[in-house]
């Protein structure tokens, strides 16, 4: 009994450490300590669970140790080896595994329930089914998101005709089956619980299938909150407070990020899920830009223009991550600063493939974070900027969002780079961005294009600057 009290106390301490850890994430200076707090909370919780007195069962420690060793090594290696540019993929995989973990636990409890060895009240059964549903959706959804981010899965290969209708039917079937399982109780039998599991797994895949590219930050955030919810539901199954608290905190984090990402695109969550502009095909608006001409820049001109500017602003996008160009950008930044140029970075909230993606890349390249401006700060600073250099970004600098009501991104807050004295776009080719939306900025009288791989182009500019 005494030991039990200590166990409960440990769970309380662990849960507080989670909350405190997240609180310290409010500032980059304390964030690292915050992460350690949360990790310590986790270790306390796990140790308490290992020594908690049990009224039944054979402990089976060997199985636990085996699992911890395998999982620990895999997790550690993945964390140490992953490139910062691949962080969205990594987060997707981890997220999917968390969902799978909750789903597996729910299934194990349901198996015991249907073979008669455990009794559950309707409420408990409902929670187990919820954990199974949300965990499974999070698992297959995250795995598909990983496949898309890694380039293993092409959007067009997983989108069926009338995909939205299929999704709605799938979801309805899954929910109706869950209600039936609840009403039937133990008599429903394990077979139908397995059908439910399979439906949930298919739905997870199918719901992510039509969403891609620039909508990825929303999906990843949403899946993150699903994993949190499934963990919280598992906490209710085991009547365990620290699991509940941990799960809810993750659910809250995912929900907040989802809302922020949707706001940054000026779209509702339903709009993102039911049909992103990624699936809309060729779009109207800006179609007549076809016969306009773009002005090409040379490396030498660009180097001179940047070197003798008073202020330069970089706008990074997903292309920066693809080209792994973050360190060259920083090199150029250093050379320009040495000549007295004021260098800033403008970060659009949905630039990249996950919330904060660009910030991590620039942090990796040692760019001090006070130089990073958010959308509002950047838009007010742009007017006084000589040259804005757009590296692998497209939709977030598209003027159509402001002045073409027919455009699919109309209304989305964008970086108004055309208010600067000059703009320079580094881009592989004239092909439109992920969303397939033409970008009138390319034809703007203030704009010049520099075609080629972003890293390659930047290296050539760096070379030219060094020669001056």
């Amino acid at each position: 009994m005494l030991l039990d009290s200590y166990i409960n106390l440990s769970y309380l301490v662990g849960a507080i450490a989670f909350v405190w850890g997240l609180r310290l994430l409010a500032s980059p200076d304390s964030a690292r300590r915050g992460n350690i707090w949360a990790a310590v909370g986790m270790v306390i919780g796990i140790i308490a669970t290992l020594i908690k007195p049990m009224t039944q069962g054979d402990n089976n420690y060997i199985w636990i140790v085996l699992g911890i060793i395998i999982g620990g090594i895999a997790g550690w290696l993945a964390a140490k080896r992953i490139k910062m540019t691949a962080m969205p993929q990594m987060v997707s995989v981890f997220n999917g595994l968390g969902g799978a973990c909750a789903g597996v636990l729910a299934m194990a409890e349901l198996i015991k329930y249907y073979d008669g060895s455990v009794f559950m009240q309707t409420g408990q059964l409902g929670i187990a089914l919820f954990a199974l549903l949300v965990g499974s959706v999070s698992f297959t959804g995250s795995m598909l998101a990983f496949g898309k981010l890694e380039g293993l899965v092409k959007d067009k290969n997983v989108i069926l005709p009338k995909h939205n209708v299929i999704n709605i039917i799938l979801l309805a079937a899954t929910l109706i089956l869950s209600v039936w399982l609840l009403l039937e109780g133990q008599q429903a039998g394990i077979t139908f619980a397995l059908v439910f599991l399979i439906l949930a797994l298919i739905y997870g895949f199918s719901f992510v299938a039509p969403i891609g590219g620039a909508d990825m930050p929303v999906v990843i955030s949403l899946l993150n909150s699903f994993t949190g919810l499934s963990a919280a539901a598992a906490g209710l199954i085991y009547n365990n407070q620290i699991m509940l608290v941990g799960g809810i905190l993750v659910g809250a984090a995912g929900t907040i990020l989802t809302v922020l990402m949707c706001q940054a695109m000026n779209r509702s969550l339903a709009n993102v899920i039911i049909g992103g502009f990624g699936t809309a095909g060729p779009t109207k608006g800006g179609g007549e830009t076809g016969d306009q001409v773009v002005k090409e820049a040379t490396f030498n001109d660009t180097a001179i223009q940047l070197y003798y500017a008073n202020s330069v602003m970089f706008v990074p996008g997903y292309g920066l991550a693809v080209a792994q160009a973050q360190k060259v950008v920083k090199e150029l930044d250093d050379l320009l600063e040495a000549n007295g140029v004021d260098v800033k970075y403008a970060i659009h909230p949905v630039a990249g493939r996950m919330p904060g993606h660009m910030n991590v890349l620039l942090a990796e390249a040692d760019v001090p974070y006070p130089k990073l401006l958010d959308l509002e700060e950047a838009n007010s600073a742009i007017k006084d900027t000589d040259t804005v250099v757009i590296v692998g970004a497209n939709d977030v600098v598209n003027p159509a969002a402001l002045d073409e009501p027919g455009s699919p991104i109309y209304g989305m807050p964008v970086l108004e780079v055309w208010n600067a004295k000059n703009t320079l776009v580094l881009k592989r080719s004239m092909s439109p961005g992920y969303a397939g939306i033409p970008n009138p900025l390319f034809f703007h009288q203030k704009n010049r294009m520099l075609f080629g791989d972003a890293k390659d182009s930047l290296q050539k500019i760096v070379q030219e600057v060094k020669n001056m």
Partner: protein
Amino acid sequence: MDTVLQFFNDQLIMIYLLLFTIILGFEVISKVPTILHTPLMSGANAISGVVIIGAVLLIRQADSNDYISLILGTVAVVLGTVNVVGGFAVTDRMLEMFKKKKN
């Protein structure tokens, strides 16, 4: 309706905890600045690995010949540990980069 009320009464403390944690979670996390959103996400991933506690309970409560529970439980422990260890380690790696460049 009765079963719902019954459930509510049985789980009263957990429901309080659930609701207050939701409020607390939203308060705390809305203060995380944009630049830390990726570490927030990977850190949250690590915390969602807290389900490993359920997996440990499942295994410990199982009889030593209940292979379904043992195997599912071990799978869950592996998944949860990858999340916990990988999540905290990669978050630490990222935050270290943020820390060293304060200028």
